[in-house]
């Protein structure tokens, strides 16, 4: 028998011959597989996606040396009110109660009076940079010099669902890949004992439409997120609900590997079969690593206090922020943290009291930045805090209960980014006098994606996948016009 007949090759031989051996995986940028850069030039003539390299989570080289290697998205759904938190508008306060001259069409209800509403909250300058921030978020004084505040973020739609899908995927149509899926697809992940892309949500429930921003869409589902729970077992089915006696699982896995390896002999080139064998190895490793990585009891009292774990109103979100740091530290590529269930920032009424409750999250958010900074991880980690849109400068309310609410506003909102080579202590973009619409340097979600990708060592126009016969890149740049904002970085 010809010893080089492929049927004789073992899986590991194939791996090493094709440059995908485990040994090489530990060396950065030397594993032989490149970031997905599927241009027409390196496509098969029929453009079929089956002709590509296998879809897996092994680390891929970026297009150029990256500034950041991991990403934490702090999802603030509902629509945080920029003029009460981040975007001081003295003119708005001065004109409180006056009719706004722009005729707004996008209202839901009870805003038709179109009367401007000032903010009762005072703004102060913080940090060496003197960033102006609201008294609602005092803990930001600790991180004002670390963050890049964007006051000119714009969305595409005034409905939550569309805008949330846009925030998650860069498109407002359901079914596109999320940012985390794109990064997993393009870069794989550092720690092969953990998923590449982890979602941490409020254990009491999903954010409304939140599930629409955590999926791989039309990318292969291996790039979809894995949900980690912040209490109880961290991953669905990580352990059987009735545990097997000691050693029994090991015996089962051993037989399984024998059977699967024998089966693979017949199909030496079926990468899925190989992936499946490796997944059982990963599953077994995850049973340990996933439990350890989310075990925050090993964190010091001081750290736990910093994240607000001792306070009832910050403990839940704080736990997720702390878990996010541990996951990133362990080599997870992308972590998505949801601030709460439903639409927590959606203050159509009870704006002032609602904001006071929600803005308590400033402590865990700020703790995450400080903690990452102190551990030297902030340089290589991008932290992105944003809701799906901002809110209106005019009041919403039926008059009876006072004017204590604001409707959605896709034309302007504030968000911030820290770490990963983003400018620190910097304010980017601005809005008009009353904060109704972005004025200078409007930033779209696809623009942000393009800029994030750039910092992760990727050219967003070259990270692409064949979708319905069309090579679609991660920002769909020829449709969205997405580009890297140099003013945000460097």
């Amino acid at each position, binding site marked *: *028998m010809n010893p*080089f007949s492929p*049927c004789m090759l073992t899986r590991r031989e194939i791996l090493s011959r094709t440059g995908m051996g485990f040994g090489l995986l530990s060396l950065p940028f030397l594993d032989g597989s490149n970031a997905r850069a599927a241009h027409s030039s390196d496509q098969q003539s*029929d*453009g*079929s996606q*089956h*002709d590509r390299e296998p879809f897996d989570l092994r680390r891929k080289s970026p297009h150029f040396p990256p500034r950041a290697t991991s990403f934490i998205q702090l999802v603030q759904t509902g629509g945080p009110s920029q003029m009460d938190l981040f975007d001081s508008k003295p003119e708005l306060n001065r004109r409180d109660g006056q009719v706004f001259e722009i005729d707004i*069409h996008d209202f839901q209800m009870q805003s038709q009076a179109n009367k401007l509403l000032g903010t009762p909250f005072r703004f102060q300058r913080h940090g060496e940079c003197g960033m102006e921030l609201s008294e609602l978020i005092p803990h930001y004084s600790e991180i004002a010099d670390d963050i890049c505040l964007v006051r000119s973020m*714009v969305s595409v*739609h*005034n409905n939550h*669902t*569309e805008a949330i899908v846009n925030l998650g995927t860069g498109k*407002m*149509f*359901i079914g596109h890949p999320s940012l985390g899926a794109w990064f997993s697809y393009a870069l794989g992940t550092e720690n092969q004992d953990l998923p590449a892309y982890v979602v941490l949500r409020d254990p009491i*429930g*999903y954010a*409304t439409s939140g599930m*629409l921003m955590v999926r791989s869409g039309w990318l292969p*589902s*291996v790039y*979809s997120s*894995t949900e980690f729970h912040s209490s109880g077992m961290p991953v*669905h*089915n990580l352990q*059987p*609900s009735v*545990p097997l*006696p*000691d050693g*029994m*699982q090991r*015996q089962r896995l*051993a*037989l*399984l590997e*024998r*059977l699967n390896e024998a*089966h693979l002999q017949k*199909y030496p*080139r079926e990468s*899925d*079969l190989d992936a*499946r064998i490796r*997944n059982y190895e*990963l*599953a077994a490793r995850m049973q340990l690593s996933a439990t350890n990585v989310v075990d925050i009891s090993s964190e010091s009292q001081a750290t736990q206090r910093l994240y607000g774990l001792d306070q009832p109103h910050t403990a839940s979100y704080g736990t997720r922020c702390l878990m996010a740091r541990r996951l990133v530290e362990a080599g997870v590529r992308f972590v998505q943290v949801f601030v709460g269930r439903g639409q927590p920032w959606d203050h159509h009424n009870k704006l002032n009291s609602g904001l006071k409750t929600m803005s308590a999250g400033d402590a865990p958010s700020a703790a995450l930045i400080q903690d990452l900074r102190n551990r030297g991880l902030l340089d290589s980690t991008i932290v992105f805090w944003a809701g799906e849109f901002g809110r209106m400068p005019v009041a919403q309310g039926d008059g009876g209960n006072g004017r204590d609410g604001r409707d959605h506003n896709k*034309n*302007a909102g504030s968000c911030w980014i820290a770490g990963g080579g983003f400018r620190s202590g910097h304010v980017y973009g601005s*809005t008009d006098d009353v904060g*109704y619409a972005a004025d200078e340097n*409007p930033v779209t979600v*696809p623009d942000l994606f393009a800029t994030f990708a750039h910092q992760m060592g990727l050219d967003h126009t070259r990270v692409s996948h064949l979708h*319905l*016969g*069309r090579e679609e890149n991660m920002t769909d740049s020829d*449709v969205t016009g997405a*580009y890297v904002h140099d003013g945000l970085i460097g």
Partner: protein
Amino acid sequence: MGTARVVHTGTRVDGTLVSRSFVAAVLRRDHVFDRETRGKFLVCRAKTMNKRIWRSVAAVSISASFFAGIIVRLPAETSDIAPGIRYSDEVTAADRQFWSFQRLSTIQVPQAANVDRVRTPVDNFVLRRLENEGLSFSPDADPSTLLRRVYLDLTGLLPSPTEVDALLVQLDTDDTDAVFDQLIDRLLSSPQFGERWGRHWLDVAGFVDILGSDENATAIRISPGKWKYRDYVIRAFNEDKPYDRFLTEQLAGDELVDWRTTEAFTPEIKELLVATGFLRLAIDDTNQAVLDIPSNRHATIYDTLQMLGTSLLGITLQCAQCHSHKFDPIPHRDYYQLMSLLTPAYNPDRWVPLPERDLADISPQRKARWQEENAELDRRVSALEQKKTAIVRPLEQRILDRKLVQVPEEMREDVKQALLTPAGQRNETQRKLARIFEANVQPTQEEVQEELTAEDRVTVSDLNDQMTQLQGQRRTWGVIQAMYDTGPPQKRHIYEGGSYEEKGEEVSPGFLTVLSQSDQVLSGEKSSRVQGETSGRRLSLAEWVTRPDSAAAALAARVMVNRIWQHLFGRGIVDTPGNLGMGGTPPTHPELIDWLAQEFVRGDWRIKPIIRVLMSSTVYRQASFRPPHFEVPEVVAYKTDPTNKLLWRMRLRRLESEIIRDTILCASDKLDLSMGGPPLPQKVLPGEEFVVATEDLPANSSPFRRSVYLLCRRNYSLTFFSVFDHPMMATNCHQRNHSAGVLQSLTMLNDDFVMEQADAVARRVFAADPRDIGEAIDLTYRLILVRSPTQQEFEWSKEFLHEHMEGYRTSEVAVGDPDRNALSGLCHVLLNSSQFLYIE
């Protein structure tokens, strides 16, 4: 505007780069220049709140109150458009020559050299192509592999060991091909065929049991009667309804019968109305008044058109919503011509919101009569109720006064008034008071009973009986989610830039120009088959798409045979089954797809004969791997055709999520094969895990029905299914993903369902009373993998069982019989094995 073109940012026109900033600059002058005076650049803002519009335009966000997308329109002569990109309003003769837009012409079947491997004409096409590349088929798969493949492909189920044994005996004596041909015929006529292949069509149509957008994980809003369409599809596949008829019923079943004036719905009328549920699958949230707005109504129509285009014609119509298609010869106008075929039923200007759109499953006449009868019953009941009140009320008052003592004196009168006011009429304060005091203060039935005199007690009891009896006579009826004209047709227009707020030229109802000769616009005359008060427009569409010898019918047939091929071979002859247009991938075997399409149409559009011919072919019967030393060696075949595009071996295919569950239940013998009816509900466990509910099941239903009968949601399928790539149904799905993620391994390893079923397989083996461990192992393999173990597998399994039994015997925590636990372990391992998950 008619000749204008659309360019994307990044192109150069007359030396000017159309950049983001350029577009933004033009836009910023919006308030200075009107549209005509903006020089040669005509810039339109897509002034719209449309959901889900395919906005293939340069989207630049600027500070304008209503910005969503920008279209830069340029005069036709200044074109600097990338090659392959068209945006043309014209359809040329050359466009009609594109392979999939041509009418079918007679295809000569080629002759392959190795006639020994040719079983059907299909083999001639495939083998000839392989031979041209110096390749050949792999040998036939061994019988037990092929058996399993045939069962899974036709029914999605595993054969029982008894069935397998009988077949293997037959194979020993009879001609192999004949045995398989008989088996294929038998399975094609089994009811499970319709469940397997109906599910393929349900993907294409985008079926879910929910009309709304299903954005909330825990609030499940099932739409009544939607499941009837699912059952219709399954029946249609089982009956082998001709595909042209199948399409016609789905597009216009309601126009084929005069259901509006008929006295009673016959089963045929109901069937035809249910069939139109095909056009009622797009997201429709208009049951919520706040969402019954123009943008959402249009979104429903757009989604329906998108589904229609990709499912029937394999064309991505949605691009032409905003501008002429980027790749295909579909002018902007064509989109709105087609849309006008739907608007008598889906009229965005006179929308019929949910649930008003629900149709009763009884005739309108009968419904009117029954409603009247019910109203009469209500009147009689309320008269009786009054009599009862006259007796009971004073008692209630007395009891209430007595119990009100518990309430602080100053509130007593208010509480009393609140409780005496019927719940619906209470004001806000009364509602609050009622909430607080109702439970303690409101007189109960029992208290009233006690106070009644003997005589009154008889009277009240008699009144109650009468009322119950009358209530029992109330008429009830079911719901059909049907498509039907809700009013006469109205004038329709092109929407400039896809914005319904910018109406352009008027359009006549019509079809796609590139697939029509002279009839792209509907003539004034209705088809003679139209029955009753309806525009007949959807029936015209059905007739256009199924008319023999037309380009449209040719495309529809190509799309369907390509899907059949895809389901049997893992990939279509065209690898983008939802796109056979210019943006899709070219066919690997162009003559074969046309030959199949022709056979399909000639064979009365019946699907089963096509499946039969494909499964009888050598290309289907060959092994999925290349044994060493077989003719052309694997290395050579691989080098020539690394992705096996040309099928020098059968493709290895992973089972779909539903089939994984169904086959597990086959192995454990728990599968409940009862058919049809309302969906099995879903339960949301804490931690948002979605499982099949075990309570509130439809009558006589076990939780182990086939997966096609489980509740279908848009966004939240069973967790078990999501893990195995069950699609989210935003519109529809043409190709399932087949990923291999780590959650799949964790699920198969640890999920309760898998563990329980593994145990059930072990019990089944024990119940068969095997003589020794060897027989137990053999039966376990045959139940799960449909074959006996190899010698090596047998040894490994035996070794494992001994080790495992020992482990259980010595364990301090294990409960139950160590032997069965050990065997359950073996079952568990086999369910986890790659072989179980793949069709070899």
